[in-house]
């Protein structure tokens, strides 16, 4: 490959790239040689703190029936009570088929944007403490980097406390 050649990316990454472009964000998608499936994997691949990794967790609103997306800092566990308080409705954990159908992506590579249909999104306020965060770009070995406030704007997310208190 020459320096000018465009790498061929997975179709799932291309969908995230389109969403980044639409949001007016830079295409910072990188496909990694190693897995970025877990927050720890992604942090070591990116050489960043685990807290800078954005976990994209899909739940189902019990009242609205809609898929809801929670963006949680990699070192935090999502507190269900906090999630329900921010979403304003009880939520349940859906199965993988539901997640796939609602987002168009498989668990392990779910990005915070670029879904088949826009998801109502809630963001862990701890993510806003970092200058830059890294999120899955559609596959279990790709990430993109973005300023957290720009990600919040692009996803029309509501931010608030979402982390479980340390045990």
């Amino acid at each position, binding site marked *: 490959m020459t320096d000018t050649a465009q790498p061929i990316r997975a*179709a799932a990454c*291309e*969908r995230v790239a*389109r*969403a980044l*472009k*639409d*949001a*007016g964000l830079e295409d910072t998608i990188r496909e990694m040689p190693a897995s970025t499936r877990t927050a720890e994997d992604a942090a070591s691949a990116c050489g960043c703190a685990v807290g800078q990794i954005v976990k994209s967790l899909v739940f189902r609103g019990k009242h609205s029936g809609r898929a809801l997306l929670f963006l949680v800092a990699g070192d935090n566990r999502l507190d269900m009570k906090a999630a329900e308080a921010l979403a304003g409705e009880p939520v349940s954990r859906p199965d993988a088929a539901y997640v796939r*159908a609602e987002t*168009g992506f498989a668990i392990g590579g779910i990005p915070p944007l670029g879904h*088949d*249909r*826009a*998801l*109502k*999104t809630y963001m862990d306020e701890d993510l806003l403490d970092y200058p830059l965060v890294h999120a899955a770009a559609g596959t279990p070995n790709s990430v993109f980097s973005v300023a957290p406030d720009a990600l919040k704007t*692009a996803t*029309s997310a*509501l931010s608030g406390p979402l982390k479980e208190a340390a045990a």
Partner: protein
Amino acid sequence: MKPLAHRRAGTAGKPPVLLIHGFGGRMETWLNMEVALERDAALLLVDLPGHGRSRDSHEPVGAGQAAKAVAATLDHLGGEPVFVVGHSMGGAVGAVLAMTRPDLVRGALLLAPGGMGPEVDAAALRQYAREYDLDELARVLRRFYAPGTRIPRGLVEELAREREDPATRRAHGEILLSILKGDNQHTLSMQRLGEATPPIHVMWGDADEIIPSAQLANLPENVTRELLPGIGHMVHLEATQAVARKLRTLIAEAV
């Protein structure tokens, strides 16, 4: 006139925004915009005559008559002027509303609007109107999006289910008779559009295969415009954030 089927969303007390879907659509097609604008606007969504939940309550009609039904709905809800976002046929409806009832329109954002020139892919519209074979429908839908855009299977299934009902196909067929003139579409008066008083902005994708973006050149001077590279006919779905940003700007400029 009876109000159209409608629904409120977004945040009450924020600037009022009316979303008007395109031919063969329904208010649910605005889901992405609804999520994007949730905290910026008091949204009002309608089903145009002959569409969705207005299919049986309102005779299937073209854009001019549909604009009257939209105006009657706004009047019914108190007559507060709104920002209008209209896609395709809904864009033509928004344009007519701005021309005929400027008292109801604070500004209009028209996405790949109908009626701005005669050219249209009539064959694609005819098939889209009545197709309920999943593969065939998925195939014709490809023309509505820029190449490479993924079309969610769930969307194809919903559209097919709607079209399995002969009453839907009949209503769509009636509306097409009002929209099309042979293999062209009826056009609005560019002179009257030029005399419209509300601010009007048009966004069009340069990869639009249904209504060519070259029709931007037909628009009168008072209409501001922008061409979106790599975007097809489904501007609200393919460039949701770009549309939301522009709408926020229009609202900020008007306040």
